[in-house]
């Protein structure tokens, strides 16, 4: 199996679990089920988990795909620093949040899904993964004219003026041949 970042799957699972937890909670509260207090907790926990899990982490290897509009969530989650960066804490948090859901039927499914997400996060933490925010890339300002070669700073080396003047009878020693005369007195 290729090297997998477990956190990516844990993230999908936790997001789904949050939604299911919240939905079960809504059903429990709306239907005024017995034990609706657990359902109310389910709604709160579900929404919280969704907010926490919405921003995807930056991948260690490869391109990261953002979820739409996740930047504001990234900023919030980033603000908690090591609490949200560490996956052990997340695994423990999800495990704790899922327990009350087990006491009421409507939230049982969300609770179990969250528990599975917690296990996958534990696996991710054991493998040394952690959460990295995806930040917008700042492009380095384009330098204009980079392809234009720098004009030379110094003139090309020339032999001294005595040798530069063409001697008609001694063409070989002249440094170069002028098609037209360059001195005013010739």
């Amino acid at each position, binding site marked *: 199996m*290729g090297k997998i970042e477990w956190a990516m799957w844990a993230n999908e699972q936790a997001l789904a679990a949050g939604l299911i937890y919240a939905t079960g909670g809504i059903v429990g509260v709306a239907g005024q089920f017995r034990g609706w207090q657990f359902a109310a907790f389910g709604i709160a926990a579900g929404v919280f988990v969704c907010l926490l899990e919405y921003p995807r982490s930056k991948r260690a290897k490869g391109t990261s795909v953002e979820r739409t509009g996740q930047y504001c969530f990234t900023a919030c989650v980033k603000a908690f620093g090591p609490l949200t960066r560490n996956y052990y804490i997340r695994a423990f948090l999800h495990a704790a949040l899922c327990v009350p859901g087990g006491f009421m039927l409507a939230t049982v499914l969300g609770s179990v899904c969250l528990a599975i997400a917690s296990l996958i996060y534990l696996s991710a933490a054991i493998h040394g993964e952690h959460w990295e925010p995806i930040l917008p890339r700042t492009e380095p300002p384009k330098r204009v004219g980079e392809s234009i070669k720098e004009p030379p700073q110094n003139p090309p080396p020339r032999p001294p003026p005595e040798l530069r003047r063409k001697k008609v009878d001694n063409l070989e020693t002249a440094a170069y041949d002028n098609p037209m005369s360059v001195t005013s007195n010739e």
Partner: protein
Amino acid sequence: MVNWIINHGLSAFIVAVWMAINIFLFVHFYLFYDQGPQFEYTRELLGSALPWARAPAAVLNFNCMLILLPVCRNLLSLIRGSFMCCGRTVRKQLDKNLTFHKLVAYMIALMTAVHTVAHLLNVEWYSNSLDGRYGPLAGNLSILDDSPELNTTYLNPIRSTSTTPTVFVFTTIAGLTGVVITLALILIITSSMEVIRRSYFEVFWYTHHLFIIFFAGLVFHGAGRIVRSQQETDPPHNNELCEDQPGIWGKIPECPIPQFAGGFPQTWMWVIGPMIIYLCERLLRFIRYMQPVSYRKIVIRPSKVLELQLVKSGFKMEVGQYVFLNCPAISQLEWHPFTMTSAPEEDFFSVHIRSVGDWTEKLISMVEKLPEGGQGPKMGVDGPFGTASEDVFDYEVSMLVGAGIGVTPFASILKSIWYKFKDSNPKLRTKRIYFYWLCRETHAFEWFADLLQVHEKEMEERGMRDFLTYKLYLTGWDQSHADHAMVHFDKDTDIITGLKQKTHYGRPNWDREFEQVRQDNPSSVVGTFLCGPQALAEVLEKKCAKYSDVDPRRTKFYFNKENF
């Protein structure tokens, strides 16, 4: 617009029919449970949550039946083969099987959600009925027990007031299987998200096998028969008369004690067929895998490309198809698809494998260690699959455009054209081919350049220089490329590919290309084939429309959008 109808019309029609069946099933079973007289007393306890649970159940039955079928690729190949007589559009639908599979999966997920919520309400209301919270009728109905001495049968599956809904769910077959299979479904869905699938296919593939648990649980889900309906009694129980006075049931002849029985579980009838078909499919894949495959030749190409020429008895392919390869020495369970690069006229089939992931890397490193002329590792081959692209041979003039990795099926096509040409195969109507090869860089495609070189030489020998015109467009050029090209400007062959035809830099100017093809072939029908990105398909489609002439004596361009 017309083009859309031609390309997508049949798919849209099939989806519309499927949706219509779903809607019909939902409405039919909703009304059946909402208005059926045999459920009048059940509805007394549950209200409208009963039909809201049963209607999605019917839709679920239908969709669980359908979901296994699009992934039986051998079955689909069989159907495609037998549909050769029918139009290509019909056969093309079979290529959209995965899209359909996903669509059905979404419907299953949605219906599962509705079904589960409705049953949550049901369980709670059954429990409330037993407590007498819904009035005397509901209460009396709920007290009815399954007792031969009193001649009663129960209606409310919750039999004791000390049971909580959670305990009830986990102690009934329906409840337990329901929770388990919903959990399996959720795990399948979260691991099938595109992000996970594209990055870690193995997680997706192995988790997807939870469908075995899903179907096993689904078949037994209704075995508990807890949805009860009223049965005929002798003398008949007159609901209208008796429902207001539950106290006198059994005491007067018009109101005998009502009898109830559970509905016969039906899900297995829907899914047993596809389950057997899928089992056969996996068996077939296994049998094909066991068939011996021998290596005719193994060539390691530059840029870590491996060419394998394989021979398997009874293997027949068409141009542009692909096979799945499995190498147990690397991984027992992984099957990877590769487009075939050989022509059907050859007595072997070949694939060119690039090193892009751990499976391909391991294969290449295993092969590199082999002795000269040795046989490679045991390989299982499943296939061939995919639409055959034989239309290429039907046009007098063909424009073939391959972008990036999309050039691979064209290797097969070009070779096949060449063989047909040499054998003067009457099926080949092509007189001229224009081949456009677009790629960012030629790394990993040098083998294709070699192929073109061979063709180029052969055609020069036959004096057929005009048959194949190919243009290579290097879209990932930079300053060093340009410098190099400038320096070697007057060399006879191209510096990148070694071909006589020079490499162009940047993207093609399609207007100019189409104009030139039109000028060279004033009265032909030109078929344009693309294997590449969608954006390019739209561009080419527009150009074909722009440069086609209504006058039948002038050039016409037909665009074939293929997904090889």
